[in-house]
């Protein structure tokens, strides 16, 4: 599976680095944001993604750590509390918008696919 993240500029620290607005999410990004519509800590996110996708999408700890750092810097998620030295995150309004836009885009993709692959496509 090839996931296109070529239009996403990942940065891990320097606040003054130019950041490009997230336009297209990778599958892993999408599921992280989806899970963070509720409060979760890092490991909880990994478990939830694994469970909801029945093991199809698995996120490594390093990848998750990097993405959470990035999302937090971009104000897409926010830390709401800390329990047992675990940071609990949730989506911000901006993050919810990003997720909704992606959901809309994916629905559009499916709809366009349906038209062509399942009949109804104009010739």
């Amino acid at each position, binding site marked *: 599976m090839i996931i296109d993240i*070529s239009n996403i500029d990942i940065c891990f*620290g320097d606040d003054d680095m130019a950041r490009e607005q997230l336009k297209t999410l990778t599958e892993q990004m999408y599921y992280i944001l989806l899970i963070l519509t509720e409060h979760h800590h890092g490991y909880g996110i990994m478990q939830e993604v694994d469970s909801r996708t029945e093991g199809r999408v698995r996120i490594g700890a390093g990848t998750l*750590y990097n993405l959470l750092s990035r999302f937090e810097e971009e104000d897409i998620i926010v830390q709401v509390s800390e329990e047992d030295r675990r940071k609990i995150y949730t989506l911000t309004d901006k993050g919810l918008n990003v997720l909704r836009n992606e959901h809309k885009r994916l629905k559009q993709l499916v709809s366009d696919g349906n038209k062509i692959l399942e009949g109804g496509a104009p010739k």
Partner: protein
Amino acid sequence: MKNKTKWVIWNFFLIDYKAMGEYLEKMAGKGWMLEKVGRSMAKFRAMEPQKLKFYVDVFKEGPLTPEKTEESEEYRKLCQESGWIFITSQDYLQFFYAYEDDEPVPIQTDEEIEQKMVELTLWKGVLRDIFILTLIAIFAFRSLFPVSDINFISFTGFTGTILFPALYILAAIPSAYGIIRIIKARRNIKRGLPIEKSTLKSARRRVMTASIPLWLIILFYILSFIGDALFKPNVVGAALLAPGIGFAIGGGIRYCIKKSKGRNKNGEIALYIVVIILVIIFVPMVTSSIREISKDMDSIDSIPEGYPVVTMEDILGKSEQGNLLNIKFDISMSPITPKYYNYWEEREISGVNKYMEIKYYKTINSYFAEIIFNGITNRLENGIKWRGRAILKKTVIIDDDMKNFWNADNMALTEEQNEIIIQKGNVVLHLSGDINFNDSQTRELMIEKFFSDL
């Protein structure tokens, strides 16, 4: 078996971090578990041979951040929860293992994000290496080049002149190779191709290619030090002061950072400033002290055999020789200059202190003798640099009449006529002091003593 440990050479390039995991799996299969990784060595502890999985990951915090920070602890906890047990860290690398049956999710599951992290840390490493190598190069190249007589009168000087550029290039190879791999990886990502992964075999080949010449050069340096120590133990001891102080400062600062609990974001910049200040203060101090010690020749009662020396007594004759105040004699050699000495004599003649100094260089051929000749004359012309200004500059005259008079290949003398440099064949003679170089008897004596066998 419980306490049995062993150290192995660990010279993997940072970019070959994937191959390190492969290597650690093999070691675990042989009954050796990783305990600690240093810059060039790794420590293993004996255990029952077992099949373990290892994961070496690149983390954003490097050598100039404490071992345990809030961020690194959070990252390691996340890895631990997903089934990876933390072992140790080294610079930007984090080492984990897991039992084979556990089948944990790999720590990195997004190749592009991983690649970005590798690039970021590698660039930090490259910039750090460039900074350190540039500092070393400024001081080393300034003292070694342009090549002069000083480079060829000791084993260390010779080794440094010939091998330091090679050592410098070898030290830069891992960074240069890392940059090439980054460029290739970027190109592959753009083309939708998989990123090249290092195999243990290729990583080992790289380590061997870079390490063997590096260790050979280090061996040459050690042998050179030993060779010089036979002639001048005090100078060699002083010369070791510089790297000794360097290692002590660097190691001390690094230890403090690694063991500190908090993380100051401006710590790295502050540290670089501290290092620059220390280098600026200590290097000139050490260099000047080495020079002072180098000048400190041994006082002697008699001249060793096999060294052609003309004394003031020979030149002046017994009636005018006055009272001897001091004689100093210093010898050295290198593969280029098998015979070198510096003779210094001071006498009180008719109530006036007079001196004479002879520097004698016998090289393996006239080519190197000419380099030494040019080195001495350039040094006299350029003087000594002090506080950004050249002092003690001398006007050097190339006099053809004097050259013919001395029957020399090359000949130069100072305007004051108190220093003369003569090169004939493979011998260079640098004479200075209260000597009348226009005196034909003195000339005959010198020619007979120093150049008669040419």
